[in-house]
């Protein structure tokens, strides 16, 4: 049986849900999500340190989706819209978890997997050097993406990123990325 997005979404759980969304990832949506999550963190009275890290990582996660999301073919518009993504922010034990998911063309999987594996294998200092190198040598894309999002997330969280690619059909896979922010660092 092929991958079922709705089933997958409803199974994303564990911990307390701070914010959940599935649908079109637009600039307005990103603004709304940030506002809601900021207000929720106020309710939890999180320390400014945690608040800042969660906010920063959330911005990069959402904007990664925004910049890299695949425009889906017509056959999938009706069900998913044009730029479909999912987001789940939750509080589990002593950490925040930010999960994002989007369809990805199978041809792009290897590059992405290699990039995440490489970032996961790097030390703090190596990540710093990589960040500075990309910052100084790579131009922004027309859409404003800089190729720095994942490196920045890894630096700010200090944790490995977890991911899966689930087969949807012959062309598309569903990419899920989980990042964690610990309460005490």
């Amino acid at each position, binding site marked *: 049986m092929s991958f079922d997005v709705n089933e997958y979404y409803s199974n994303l759980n564990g911990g307390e849900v701070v914010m959940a969304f599935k649908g079109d990832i637009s600039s307005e949506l990103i603004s709304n999500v*940030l506002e809601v999550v900021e207000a929720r963190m106020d309710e939890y009275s999180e320390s400014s340190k945690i608040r800042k890290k969660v906010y920063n990582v959330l*911005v990069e996660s959402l*904007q990664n989706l925004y910049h890299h999301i695949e425009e889906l073919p017509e056959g999938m518009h009706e069900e998913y819209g044009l730029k479909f993504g999912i987001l789940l922010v939750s509080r589990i034990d002593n950490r925040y978890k930010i999960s994002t998911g989007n369809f990805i063309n199978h041809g792009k999987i290897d590059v992405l997997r290699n990039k995440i594996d490489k970032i996961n294998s790097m030390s703090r200092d190596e990540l710093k050097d990589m*960040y500075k190198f990309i*910052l100084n040598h790579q131009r922004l894309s027309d859409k404003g993406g800089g190729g720095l999002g994942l490196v920045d997330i890894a630096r700010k969280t200090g944790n490995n990123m977890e991911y899966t690619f689930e087969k949807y059909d012959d062309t598309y896979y569903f990419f899920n990325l989980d990042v964690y922010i610990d309460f005490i660092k």
Partner: protein
Amino acid sequence: MEALSFEGTAKTPSVKFNGQEGIIEIKGRSIPENSIEFYKPLVEWLEEYSSTPMDLTQVNVQLEYFNTSSSKCILDVFKKLEAIHKGKSEVIINWYYEEDDEDMLEAGEDYESIIRVPFKMIEIVE
């Protein structure tokens, strides 16, 4: 030359560039999806200012958040300032960060290691 001034928004910082006083300020949040458009007039203003800069240009950067799209544009702003500093006039970049915001301090240090302009790291204590 005319001053450049923008109010801040939820995703873009407030900007005050004053050529007569040689004071340049960027404050707030810089998290637009595409920062190129926002930073273009800032870089152009500095390009013009660099032909007749003040003896001392003081730059105050006080960001609460900035995203990676902005980080490159901020570097472009700093490269313009570096070019001014290479000439006869002096430039100082004051990089503000909130108490215990190590990520923001580290971001300032990243720029300091790339840009040849004196940086002053200033901790804001509440």
